[in-house]
């Protein structure tokens, strides 16, 4: 191999490693410096629960529609703008009272001005005023054989860290009130 090709070989390897480290670094930065939110999951079709070795997660904020008059303030939702499939949705989480529950405000295209905490997702379907949003946190990889614990739990919440741009990363599962150890 000529010296020039040798140098190029080293450069390619370095680029591959830098790419991997960059991916790790971006996620680690979100987990370290991001703001914490706890999202409530909703039951999923048991047939979809497991695909190999990961759990499929769906959240209360995965399916959204206008519901501004819900008697429960924690379930009031407002959609702002037109949502089409493939659009980016910015879901602002507004704390209700002193609890970690929140009401939801979703806006298409950009985050709500002055929003304190928002999570970014992609609209996967939009029908009759109801949208489905993917936030990139719908899978949780687990060790083989441990999925049953999650499947049989009564309540599963997900603690996430959200960075300034709204990208969320899963920090931990909270199964029946306790942090789940993988």
């Amino acid at each position, binding site marked *: 191999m000529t010296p020039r090709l040798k140098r190029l070989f080293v450069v*390619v390897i370095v680029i*591959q490693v830098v790419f991997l480290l960059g991916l790790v670094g971006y996620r680690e930065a979100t987990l370290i410096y991001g703001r914490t939110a706890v999202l409530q999951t909703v039951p999923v079709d048991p047939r979809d629960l497991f695909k190999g070795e990961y759990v499929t997660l769906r959240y209360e904020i995965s399916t959204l529609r206008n519901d501004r008059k819900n008697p429960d303030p924690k379930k009031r939702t407002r959609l702002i703008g037109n949502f089409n499939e493939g659009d980016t949705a910015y879901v602002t989480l507004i704390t209700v009272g002193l609890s970690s529950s929140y009401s939801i405000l979703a806006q298409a295209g950009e985050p709500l001005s002055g929003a304190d905490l928002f999570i970014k997702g992609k609209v996967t379907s939009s029908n009759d005023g109801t949208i489905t949003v993917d936030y990139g946190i719908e*899978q949780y990889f687990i060790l083989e054989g441990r999925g049953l614990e999650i499947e049989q739990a009564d309540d599963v919440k997900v603690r996430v860290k959200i960075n300034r741009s709204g990208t969320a990363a899963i920090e931990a599962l909270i199964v029946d009130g306790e942090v789940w150890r993988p």
Partner: protein
Amino acid sequence: MTEETQNNDSDQIAGTNTQQSDPEVTPTSTLAPIASERQNWLKTRVEKWRESGIISDDQSEAIINYEAAPEEPFRLGLRFNRLIVVLATLGAILIGAGIISFVAANWQGIPSIAKLALLIGGQVATYGVAYQLQFARGYPRIGGAIMFTGAAWFGANVFLVAQSYHLPTDNPDLLIWWFLGILPLAYIVRSNAITVMAIGIFIVGLAWKAGTWADGSENFFGVVGILLLSAAVIYAIGTLHLVREKIKFHAGPYLAGGALLAIGVTYILTFAEVFRESSREINNFQTVSSSQIILTSIVTIIAATALAMTYRFSPHINRNSSQRFAETAVVVLVVALGWILITLPLNSIGFYVVAFNLLLVLLIFGTITLGIVNKREALVNIGIIFFVIDLATRYIELTVDMLDTSLAFIIGGLLLLGVGYGMERARRKLLTQFGLRESSHDS
């Protein structure tokens, strides 16, 4: 994998040179018996070259002795060579499969940072070992196989990092990143195996991504059109590789990948049901978004540039003009039909079905022809496989409602036997034209 055979050739040449150095042996007495018509022809030609002064006496003797060497040791050398390649490749594939299954097993017992350090470190170490073996220690085949393992390891690491942070792994972007990471490596280390892997990954990732865009959307034809155009680009890039000796080695995967993608996509479009189910798009003149026009234009420009550069530089290499024009015309036709698919200018399902059926036939026979002319076995195989698939599909389409099922099976079976017999005869003819012979014990 194509493999050089220089190592074994050098052993063979050393043997004949020893014979040549004996002063008491006349040139003719060193000749091994000439066993075939081909070698008789060669002897006649070499004698004429020697008489006309093109080659010296020593050179003529060296050529004759080299070609007269018993075939069995030479063939044995070739087979041993291939055995090394097969063993090394199988070993590399097993290691690669082991790495990937390791990823799928969710290795969570070790802290993330340590786990990633081991895997990234392992990848770098694999590359280091591969480099040493392939370029420094003179074990090119083993080194090449380990280099292939390193490239596979990089892909496994991409998926592992995604999995470690619970990112969706059913994401075609990961395949595209894998492709971008290993494609330059394929050229630097001159690995056809890594080129094949890269192109394969790219096509799967592209088709997967196109599928996610088209799924349930009103954009099916736009996405499929882009896929067709991408196939033309990949093939055109393959033809561009052929004009430079240094990169000609890498042309095969592009040509085969482009042909496979083009034929595969066209095959899907030969069914009227595909157009009927999306009749809403066709009944109205489809409004194409500006972003789609831009993307389509970019892909078209890349294809056109590759073809233009191939056309510009190809007079410098031995290429038949009509073949060059025919190949270019087919690529242009694919691009044109891609545009028609994206814009859907005519309100007629029949037009599109007929057009794509004709295109499929053209692509199949064009691929087989180009494969024969350029001696590219992969293209011939792709063409023949899709010929059989298309034939079977059209037969079933035509007869499913017309004939009793059992009668259809009988007729179909007879047709297949007939096609198989014809193909076997054609295959033997092709092998003869390529100048290859099958061993009698080969099945």
